[in-house]
């Protein structure tokens, strides 16, 4: 009975309210826009721009960290191998 009504609401697709809500949620995740969350409105395009920048920053951080990790892993390998070797040859 009410199935038709609910189905039409969902299939009518994307309402502005939904998009607004999602953008609000996104804004709360961003470190910069989260603290200055006064009652004045941050524009949607600004939120999206900051999101893109933030994701790019995070990607870059992950890349940097992976490089450092790979160096550390290689070094601990060789360090431990050298240690073991020196212990064995004593």
């Amino acid at each position, binding site marked *: 009975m009410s199935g038709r009504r609910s189905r039409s609401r969902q299939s009518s697709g994307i309402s502005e*309210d939904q998009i607004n809500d999602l953008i609000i*949620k*996104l804004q709360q*995740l961003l470190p910069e826009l989260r603290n200055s969350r006064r009652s004045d409105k941050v524009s949607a395009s600004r939120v999206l721009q900051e999101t893109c920048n933030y*994701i790019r920053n995070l990607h870059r951080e*992950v890349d940097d960290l992976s490089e450092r990790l790979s160096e550390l892993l290689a070094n601990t390998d060789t360090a431990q191998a050298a240690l073991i070797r020196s212990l064995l040859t004593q």
Partner: protein
Amino acid sequence: MASLISDNEQPSMTINPNSTAHVRKKKRFSSSSPSSSASISTESHPRWRSEKQHRIYSAKLIQALKQVRLSSSSSVTSSPTTHTRGKAVREAADRALAVSARGRTLWSRAILANRIKLKFRKHKRPRQTVIPAMTTVVTTGTSRNKKRRVSVVRLNKKSIPTVNRKVRVLGRLVPGCKKESVPVILEEATDYIQALEMQVRAMNSLVELLSGSASAPPPI
């Protein structure tokens, strides 16, 4: 859960079951390891902020990294550049991240599908037949919207094409969302950002751990 509420007598801001987990996390983060970020956790996705998730991810990451180390040491390349090794580490980390997402998000499935190369490319739609070690229900971006009357963001008629454009750009950044609709991209982005933050925290603590042990001389 009830005991936790009685323990923390502090007036919590919201009174729903998510907030007890939130308060519990705050107490634990204040007393624990250096990997605690300023996590003012949102109510919507508490799972990427929980310590349990952090532990799961760290364990998977360490396993994956061990495999990377073994493969790179046994390979014949005498001088692997930092970039190729770094990329291998990054891919392992991404893979571990995607696995800990348990297949509920688009980007995680896309990351894993790319690893299985192009064989299953036509099954990239959520048919659930592809991912080997995942037996979860496919829920792509279920938007349970609590109707909040306070809207901080205004979408006016003029800005809709701008918003669309930026959402497309965002969709290219998040893996697997190049051709999705706007609300899907936004929802995936929120999840992806939190997952990435956790990844950064975990890798940071791992680097600290490794560099701390490498610099200190081992006791004899």
